[in-house]
C-alpha cells in the first residue's frame, strides 16, 4: 500500500506515491510529458514520462525501489489568485475607484500602494465582498465573487483596516472564536508559535500593544489556513519597531507560499515586502510592476545626499555642471544621478569648489520618487 504524500512544489503539483517527488531545483517545462522524479531511497533522479492524471509505475534503476507517481494537471505559477476587471465604485458624483483592472499571481505579495483616500480600502473591500461595486467583476481563485463568494470564504483570510478584536477575550480565545467559523482549521498552537505570540496567548486583547494587536489580527486571518491573505493597512499607526515586526510576519506568510494582498501607504513597506506593486492615485492605477521595474521605469536613477552642506553656492556649482540638485530644509543637498559613474564627477566638483560638508550618502531611487514622478506630489505629502 503506497501512501500519498502531498507535494510542496507549487510549479508541478504531482500526487506522488512511495515518496517519489519532484526535486525543487529541477526547472522543467511543466507541459512536457517527460518528468523527472527523485528516488526516496537513494536520492537519484529518474526520468519518466506520462500524461496528465496518469499513474505511472517507477522502478529506480540505481537501487531497484519500486513506486508509483501520478502526474497531476499543471498549475502554472502565472495562474491568478485574484483577477479584477473594470472595477468601479461611485458615491454619488464621486468616483472612488475608476474602472481598475489587475491580476494577483498565486504565491506573491501584491502591494496596493497609494496615499490615504486613493481608493485602496474601497477596492480591497469590494474584492472581499464587503462593499458592493458599482460595476466590474472580481474573481478569487477562479470564482466570481458576485455569485460564489461563499465558496471562497474558506480559502481566504482577511484583516480589515483598523481592526480591533473583542477586548475581553484572550489571544487564544480570540483565535479559537474565529477558527470555529471555518471548516478548514489551522493549528492554533502553530499560528501562535509562528507569529511569536506564545507569551501573549493568555493575555486579554485589550491589554496588548498596538503592534501585538496587529499581529493578532494577522493571526486571526490565518485560522483557516487560507490560500490568500488580505491585509488592509496592517502597520498603520504602529511605531517603527512594531511595524518592522508586522513586516516580518508578512514576509513569513510569503515564505509559506501564501498569496498576500497588502494595501499600504508606506512605500518602505511595499519595497520591503512586495513582489508586485500597483500604485493607485485618485481611484486610478497609475503604475504597476515589480519594485525594480517601477523604479527602473519611473525612478530618477540614484540620489546622492550631501549631508549638512555648509557652502552657500554649492547648489549653483552643481547646477552649472548640469546636475539636477536641490537643497533640503535640513541643509542637505540631494543630487539626482542617472548613472552611478557620475558620482566621481560630483566628488570632483566638491573638491574643486572646496565645498564643505559632513558626509556623502548614495542611495537608489525609491517608490517615493516613482510616486513623485507620476503625480508631481510626494506620497507622504498626499497623506497629510
Amino acid at each position, binding site marked *: 500500500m503506497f501512501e500519498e504524500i502531498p507535494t510542496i512544489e507549487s510549479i508541478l503539483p504531482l500526487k506522488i506515491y512511495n515518496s517519489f517527488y519532484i526535486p525543487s531545483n529541477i526547472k522543467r517545462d511543466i507541459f512536457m510529458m517527460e518528468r523527472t522524479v527523485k528516488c526516496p531511497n537513494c536520492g537519484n533522479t529518474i526520468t519518466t514520462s506520462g500524461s496528465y492524471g496518469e499513474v505511472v509505475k517507477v522502478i529506480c534503476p540505481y537501487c531497484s525501489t519500486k513506486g508509483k507517481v501520478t502526474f497531476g494537471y499543471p498549475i502554472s505559477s502565472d495562474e491568478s489568485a485574484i483577477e479584477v476587471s473594470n472595477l468601479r465604485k461611485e458615491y454619488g458624483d464621486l468616483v472612488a475607484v475608476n474602472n481598475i483592472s489587475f491580476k494577483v499571481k498565486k504565491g506573491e505579495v501584491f502591494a496596493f500602494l497609494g496615499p490615504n483616500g486613493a481608493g485602496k480600502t474601497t477596492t480591497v473591500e469590494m474584492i472581499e465582498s464587503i462593499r458592493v461595486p458599482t460595476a466590474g467583476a472580481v474573481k478569487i481563485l477562479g470564482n466570481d465573487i458576485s455569485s460564489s463568494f461563499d465558496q471562497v470564504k474558506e480559502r481566504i483570510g482577511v484583516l480589515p*483596516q483598523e*481592526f480591533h*478584536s473583542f477586548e475581553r477575550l484572550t489571544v487564544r480565545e480570540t483565535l479559537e472564536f474565529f477558527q470555529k467559523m471555518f471548516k478548514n482549521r489551522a493549528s492554533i498552537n502553530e499560528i501562535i508559535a509562528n507569529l511569536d505570540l506564545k507569551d501573549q496567548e493568555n493575555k486579554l486583547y485589550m491589554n496588548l500593544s498596538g503592534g501585538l494587536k496587529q499581529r493578532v489580527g494577522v493571526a*486571526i486571518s490565518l485560522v*483557516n489556513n487560507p490560500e490568500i491573505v488580505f491585509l488592509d493597512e496592517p502597520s498603520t499607526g504602529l511605531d517603527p519597531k512594531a511595524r518592522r515586526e508586522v513586516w516580518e510576519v508578512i514576509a513569513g506568510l510569503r515564505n509559506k507560499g501564501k498569496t498576500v494582498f497588502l494595501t499600504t501607504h508606506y512605500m518602505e513597506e511595499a519595497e520591503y515586502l512586495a513582489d508586485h506593486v500597483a500604485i493607485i492615485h485618485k481611484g486610478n492605477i497609475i503604475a504597476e510592476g515589480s519594485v525594480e521595474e517601477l523604479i527602473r521605469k519611473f525612478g530618477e536613477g540614484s540620489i546622492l545626499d550631501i549631508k549638512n552642506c555648509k557652502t552657500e553656492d554649492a547648489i549653483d556649482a552643481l547646477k552649472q555642471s548640469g546636475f539636477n540638485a536641490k537643497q533640503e530644509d535640513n541643509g542637505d543637498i540631494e543630487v539626482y544621478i542617472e548613472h552611478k559613474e557620475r558620482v566621481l564627477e560630483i566628488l570632483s566638483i566638491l573638491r574643486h569648489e572646496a565645498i564643505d560638508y559632513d558626509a556623502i550618502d548614495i542611495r537608489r531611487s525609491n517608490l517615493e520618487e516613482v510616486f513623485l514622478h507620476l503625480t508631481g506630489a510626494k506620497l507622504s505629502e498626499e497623506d497629510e
Partner: protein
Amino acid sequence: MNAGIIWASFKADLQSFYRSKATLFWTLLFPILLILMFGAIFSGVGDAEYELVVVDYDDSDMSVMFTEILNDTDIIKTNVKVIEEENILSYIKNNDIKRLIVIPDDFEQSLNTFYFDENVTTSIKFYFDQSEQQTNSIIRSVISAVVIELNKNISGGKDIILIDDIETISGEFEFIDFFLPGMIGFTIMQTCIYGSLERNTKFRKDGILRKLLTTPITRTEWILSKMLFQLFLSFVSAFLIIVIGIFLFGLNIHISLLMFILIIATSFLFTGMGMVIGRFVKDEESAGMAGGAVTFPMMFLAGTFFPLEQMPEFLQTIAKVLPLYYVNEGFRNAMIYLKTDDAIFHSVIVLIFAIIFFLTGLILTKWKED
C-alpha cells in the same frame, strides 16, 4: 500655553459637533424634550387627577356635599357608584379599582346628632391598593384634610368623622411587589437595547462586522447567537431580581409559563428595538445617547417605578403605546396579581411588539458597507 492651538482645537470640536445631526439632536433637542416631558409630570401642566370611586349609602345633602368637596380639590376626581356592601371587595378586584370610599348611611345623621351627643362618630371606609402606595398616600392625605376641616367646622376639632383604612387584596401586596416586576422589564430592556447597540456600532467601528462578512458565518447565525446570549442574560437578571425580592423583601411571586414567555418576548422585543436604533446611529457616542433617549423616558413613563395614575392623562395615553408598559403590566399580572386574563392580554401585545421590532431590526441590520 498656546492660545492658537486651543482655539484650533475648540474650532475643530465645534465643526465636528455641528456637522453631526445626531449629536446635535441628542445634545440639544433631546434635553429640551425631556424637560418638557418631566415638567409636565411634576408641575401643574396637565393637572393630574386621581379617580376615587365613592359609594354613598347615605345619599344625603351632607354626603353629597362631602363628595363635592373632594371633587373640588382638583386632585381627586370622584366617581359615584351604587354597589351592595357585600359586593364591594369583589367589585374592587374585578374592576381593578385602586381606591374607593364608602360613606356610611348614618353620615348626615351622625353630624346632626353631635349637637346632642358629643360621643357620636361615623366612619368612612377607605379601600386602597397597597401596591400603589405613593398615589394612595396622596389621596389619603387629601381625604384626611377634607375630613379634618369638616370636623373642625362642625365640632371645633373633635373627631366625628373617622377614616377606616382598608387595604385591598387583603394587604398581601406591598410597593416592592409593584416595583420588582417593573425592574425585571426595565433590566431586560436595558440589557437588550444596549447589547444590541454595541453589536451594531462598536463592532462595526472595530471592523468586526467586516471581518465576519468574510467568514462563513451568516448574519442570521450571528444575530441568533447574540440573541441567545441576550436571552440568557435576561433570565439571569430576572432570576437574580426575583431571588433578591423573595429573600430580602419577602416578595410573593408566582412562577408561571407566562412569565417565561414574557421574558423571551421582551428580550426579542428590545433586541429588535436596539437593532432598529443601531441602524440609524453610526458611532458609539451617538448610540449611547440614542439608547438613553429611548430607555430613559420609557423607564419613567411606562410605570416602572410609579403608577401611571400619578401622571397627567395625556402622558398616560402616551404610556399605553410604549412597549415597556405592557411588559411591566404583563409581569405584574403574571407574577403578582395572578390576573391570568390580563397577563395573557399583555403578553400577546408584547409578542406582537417583539415580532414587529425584531423583524424590522433583522431587515434593517446590514453588514455590507455602502
